[in-house]
C-alpha cells in the first residue's frame, strides 16, 4: 500500500476549498487540451503551406548548376529541421492531451492515482519544453560567439 500525502491544513478548509480546487484543475486541463489541439493544428497548417511552397520551388526550372544544388541542400536541411520540430510539437501536445484526459477522468472517478499519472504527463510536456529551451539557449550562445568572432 502506498503512503498518502499528509494534508493537515485541509481539515479546516476542506469544505470551502474542494469544489473550487476541482473546478480550477478541470479548467486548467480543459485549456491545456485546447492549447495542444491549437498547437497541432497551427503546426500542421504551417507544414502544409511550407510543403506546397517547396513543391512549387522544386518544380520551377530557374537556376542551374550550383544554384540548383544549394537550393536542394536548403530544402533537405529545412525538411530535417521540420521533422525535429514536428516531433517536439507532437510529443509535448500528446503530453498535454493525456494530462487533460486523465485529469478530467480522475476528477470524475475520484481516482488519486489517475491524477498522479496526469501530473506525470504534465511533467513530460514541460520537460520537452525545458529541453527545447536548453537547446535554444545553446544555439543562441553559439550564434553570439560566431557574431563576436566576426567583429
Amino acid at each position, binding site marked *: 500500500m*502506498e503512503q498518502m500525502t*499528509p494534508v493537515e491544513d485541509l481539515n479546516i478548509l476542506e469544505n470551502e*476549498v474542494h469544489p473550487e*480546487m476541482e473546478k*480550477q484543475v478541470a479548467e486548467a486541463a480543459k485549456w491545456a487540451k485546447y*492549447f495542444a489541439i*491549437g498547437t497541432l493544428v497551427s503546426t500542421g*497548417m504551417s507544414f502544409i503551406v511550407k510543403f506546397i511552397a517547396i513543391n512549387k520551388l522544386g518544380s520551377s526550372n530557374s537556376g542551374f548548376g550550383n544554384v540548383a544544388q544549394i537550393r536542394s541542400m536548403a530544402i533537405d536541411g529545412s525538411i530535417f529541421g521540420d521533422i525535429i520540430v514536428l516531433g517536439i510539437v507532437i510529443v509535448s501536445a500528446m503530453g498535454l492531451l493525456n494530462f487533460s484526459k486523465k485529469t478530467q477522468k480522475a476528477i470524475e472517478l475520484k481516482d488519486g492515482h489517475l491524477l498522479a499519472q496526469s*501530473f506525470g504527463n504534465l511533467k513530460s510536456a514541460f520537460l520537452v519544453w525545458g529541453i527545447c529551451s536548453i537547446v535554444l*539557449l545553446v544555439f543562441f550562445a553559439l550564434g553570439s560567439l560566431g557574431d563576436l568572432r566576426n567583429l
Partner: protein
Amino acid sequence: MVLISTLPIIVLIKTFFMLDEQGKEQSLFGFSLPDYGVDNLRKAAKWARFTAIVAFCIFAIATIAFIAVFMVGDAMYSGAFRFGLGVDGQMGLFVTLVVMCAFIYSFYQLLRFSALSVKYAERDRATQLGDAFKSLRMFFLVMSIYILFSLIIFFFTLLT
C-alpha cells in the same frame, strides 16, 4: 451494567469518527493523492519555472534588439525611420507590443504556477494548489487565444 453494555457502541461510534477523520486528513478533491503524484507535480513545476525563466530572458533580449533596431534606424535616417512607419507600421508596432505583453503575462502565470506548486509540494497547503492551477489555466488560456488569432491571421493571409 448499562455502562458496560453501551461500551461497545461508544467504541464503534468513536472508531467510525476516527476513520472519518483519517479520511479527511488525506483527502484531496474528495480523494487522496499518492506521494508520486506530488513528486510529479514538483518536477513539472520545476521544468515550468525553467521554461518561464528562459522565455523571460528571450523577451528581454528581443526587446533590447527591437529598441536597438529602432534607435539605429532612427539615427541613420534622422527620424525618418520612426515617423516613416506609416499606418501599417504603427499598427504592426502596436500588435507586436500587445503580443509581447500577452506573452509576458502568460509566462508570469506559468512562473506563479511553478512557485505555488512547489510550495504546495513542500508544505502541503491545499489552497495553494487551487491557486496554482488557476495560474496554469490562465497560461493555457492566453496561449490558446494567441494561437487562435495566429490561425485567423494565417487563413486571412492565405485568402488575400
